[in-house]
């Protein structure tokens, strides 16, 4: 079977790639894609730890699964509202590039 370390390294790498995307991209939709990658990395971590703790017990162990479900819910809410904001900003200002959305700079 697979060492736990592989999953943790994989999810750390995925998280960091997502972080880079969220920090460095200009387009707001791309930033949200980066956030989605980060949330996926979190999910991989949660499920890996769920497996790690489940294999040590005989009774069913579901805490990791319940957490992952909630991450799915949060990811859905985040992407729905985030994209609605981006679309709204685009339709008002005709741009989805974050640097040009400088309304608050005054």
């Amino acid at each position, binding site marked *: 079977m697979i060492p736990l370390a592989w999953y943790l390294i994989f999810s*750390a790498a995925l998280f960091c790639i997502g972080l880079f995307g969220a920090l460095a991209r200009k387009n707001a939709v791309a930033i949200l894609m980066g956030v989605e990658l980060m949330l996926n990395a979190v999910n991989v971590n949660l499920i890996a730890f769920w497996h790690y703790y489940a294999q040590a017990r005989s009774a069913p162990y579901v805490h990791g699964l319940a957490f992952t479900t909630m991450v799915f819910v949060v990811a859905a809410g985040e992407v729905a509202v985030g994209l609605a904001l981006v679309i709204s900003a685009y339709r008002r200002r005709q741009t989805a590039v974050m640097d040009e959305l400088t309304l608050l700079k005054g």
Partner: protein
Amino acid sequence: MNGLQLVFLLAALVSLFSAVMVVSARRMMHAALWLVLTLMGVAVIFVTLQSSFFAVVQVLVYVGAIAILIIFSVMLTRRVMEDQGDQVLPGWRAAALVAVLLFAVIVGFLALWQGFSAMLVELPSDADNLLELGKALVSPQGYVLPFELASVLLVAALIGAITIAVDLKEDQRG
């Protein structure tokens, strides 16, 4: 190295490569399609972790719904000049440095933990897990509060997003 490890490595490589493409592709549509591939790779990784439910849910929710929503948004926010020119901010090198440093720090700290070298062994069967998850989600000792709050959160997201999107249309018309 056994077959399962091979599958894991393939899936991990595919999803990491396409994740890199997501953050570096010039055309937003391509980034979105690479994102789909990443999500499929993560679904395979859930399979190797013996969590069939979340593997399928990953395909259902992420590929079937979130990716479609993202693609729709890409189509809604296109501008002729958008796909040309640099897609990253001038300070992207700093961002890359932050990401690499964070990766090093995470892996470094994890390596200190004694469970880091543990092996994951095959679970007997995860059919019961779904049943237990269902019980835990609605049991007062378990997750009933997050369960109901999830509903409230979803409704809030629905109402918020529709208010933002639909009101705007009325603005433009009036």
